[in-house]
């Protein structure tokens, strides 16, 4: 089945006339996604690769003549909050925020409003999500034929903090004859709309998904949160994790500093090693090398390597 997207899923692109958005729109259209409108204030009347452009989300929805399911937001950081609030308040339930460098305060406000309205945000600073051969929402995988090469349909759900690594990992699963149910680039910022644990219930409810692969990095508590979730929820899905950035644990590399009070909120900031220990304690298999992922998944699935 897959999560969040379907063949009938409709979405708009906010900031559609921008350089990146113009490419992304074509890629999604070529992939077969239903991009039903675009929004750039002041540019009503134009079209981008045949997609009509409007001044407001409300106009785009009205033009479509039915509720629009999603929006891909590529608007610059100073205006992103406004665009996302507009989407939420016009009934859009799934919002992918591609934009990076948005101040945390703005992101937290968007996420809180989305919560209140029953909407879900993916990102920011992400490449979107893709259900192979069904729908591509965002720049993930690139041009349609490249995305098709990297993403074959299959039983593995992929979640990654890095956009590029979502495709690298999915490609290796495709090459190994496994394939992907849904791949989600969840974004690289300190505060994001959907963490691993928050997306797990969707994968759990999806019959097609039989295993999960996550790509993760130092910083934050998402892995601890995921470990807690799997323990508390008796999940049926085996998880394989790959962690990058272990070199940052070395003394001469210490870069990121949280204020010391930050540690009492998040628990002592996990080093990469500590995160790995925590994940393994929760039954999550952590692989050392990126090319070990497909075999680890096959093992978990009880399939011949």
């Amino acid at each position: 089945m897959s999560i969040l997207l379907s063949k009938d899923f409709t979405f708009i692109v906010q900031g559609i006339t921008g350089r990146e958005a113009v490419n992304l729109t074509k890629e999604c259209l070529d992939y077969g996604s239903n991009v039903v409108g675009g929004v750039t204030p002041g540019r009503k009347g134009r079209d981008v690769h045949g997609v009509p452009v409007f001044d407001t989300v409300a106009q785009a929805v009205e033009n479509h003549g039915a509720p629009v399911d999603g929006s891909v937001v590529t608007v610059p950081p100073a205006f992103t909050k406004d665009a996302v609030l507009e989407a939420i308040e016009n009934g859009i339930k799934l919002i992918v925020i591609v934009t990076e460098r948005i101040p945390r305060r703005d992101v937290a406000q968007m996420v809180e409003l989305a919560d209140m309205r029953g909407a879900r945000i993916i990102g920011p600073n992400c490449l979107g999500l893709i259900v192979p051969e069904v729908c591509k929402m965002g720049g993930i995988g690139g041009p349609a034929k490249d995305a098709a090469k990297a993403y074959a349909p299959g039983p593995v759900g992929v979640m990654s903090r890095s956009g590029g690594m979502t495709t690298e990992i999915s490609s290796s699963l495709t090459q190994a004859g496994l394939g992907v149910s849904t791949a989600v680039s969840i974004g690289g910022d300190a505060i994001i709309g959907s963490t691993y644990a928050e997306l797990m219930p969707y994968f759990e409810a999806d019959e097609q998904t039989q295993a999960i692969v996550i790509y993760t990095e130092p910083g934050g508590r998402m892995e601890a949160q995921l470990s807690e979730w799997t323990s508390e929820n008796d999940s049926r899905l085996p998880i394989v994790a790959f962690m990058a950035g272990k070199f940052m644990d070395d003394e001469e590399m210490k870069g990121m500093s949280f204020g010391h009070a930050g540690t009492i909120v998040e628990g002592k900031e996990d080093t990469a090693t500590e995160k790995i220990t925590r994940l393994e304690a929760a039954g999550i298999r952590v692989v050392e090398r990126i090319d070990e992922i497909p075999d680890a998944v096959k093992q978990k699935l009880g399939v011949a390597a």
Partner: protein
Amino acid sequence: MRFYEYEARKIVELAGIPVTKYGFCTTADEARKAAEEIAGPVVIKSQVLSGGRMKAGGVKFADTPDEAAEHAEAILNLEINGQMPRGVLVDPKAEVKQEYYAGVVWDGTAKRPLMLFSDMGGIDIEEVAEKHPDHVGRGHLSNLLPIADFEAKQAIAATGVTGKQLQRATPILARLARLFRDNDMTLAEINPLAELTDGSFVALDAHMEMENEAVGRQKKLLRGRLEIAEEDTREPYEPSAFERNVAAIDAADHRGVIQGRDHGFEGNLGLVIGAGGGSLTLTDAVRSQGGKPANYSEIGGNPSVAKACGLAKQVLEKDGVEKIAVMMSIVSNTRVDIVARGVIKGCLELGKDPGETIAIFRIPGAWEEEGFKILDRYGVEYCDRSVSMWEAAGRAVEKIQGTAA
């Protein structure tokens, strides 16, 4: 972005939180004058962006203005953790009855700011939270609703503080929370928040950090009130020539993004790598297989040939770099052929043979067929997506260590 104590005190004062009558001084003479004005015992504090000032001798007490000048002179010339002070803070030595802690931080899991309060101030808050958890009160704040005083009151009352202390501490914590939000802080701490013998509350020390992403929209505070110059970014360390040069190349051309870091790296294998997580993964892979990176780098978006060339040359010109490895995870937006042109040109412009200098080229993705033609023509060893990032990194290490087949 980090702030000096004297700046953090100003920020706190602007938010309506009581501070002592302090003076920021850059000479011993100024310190003497400040001490004269205060007309009582003072404490002289080094203004550096480092902790451990007390231990390093950067905090001294003085009973007379002359003594204050003497201490100021010494401290102004005292290096702490590799930093020279910007100046000293001359503070009246306070008559403290009790010390409290007030702070606001981001809770990334809850996705909300979190207020923290403790009646055991003056010491490490992590220690207090661990050993005396009921002496730490907490409260999450909505991101959308106005911050109400009662929310601060609740967090304080949870520690058992009551009476006049509760009444006086409440607006202080509330104002700290509002300043955290209004100024896009990632950390706002007052430790200690002191209750003086006369019952008044005063911030004796403050520590603030602002999110870098928000610096652009906090000009009124930064340039106006605090008079911090735009170039004054307060990075944890001084950028190297390599880092500065790469930043300059990046800034001069808007096509794509390049970044370079070499702080903490001293190897012989230059890394021209990219795609966020890809850079981390590749750096790990090189090190795990015995390689010694000379640097870390990032290539993002769709860089021009000139930008890719510029980065390659900077890496190649670093002391001790013998070869470079050009590797990324699968790219959709970045063009393989453009990066190939850039790195090959970098070698050529330095009079080096690309085939010899580029240990391995592993970038699968957009326009790869065109890229492979270019790499073939110049004799550069490359691999496609069927070779993992791990294996490609291993190949680069083999080549540079001369253990390659």
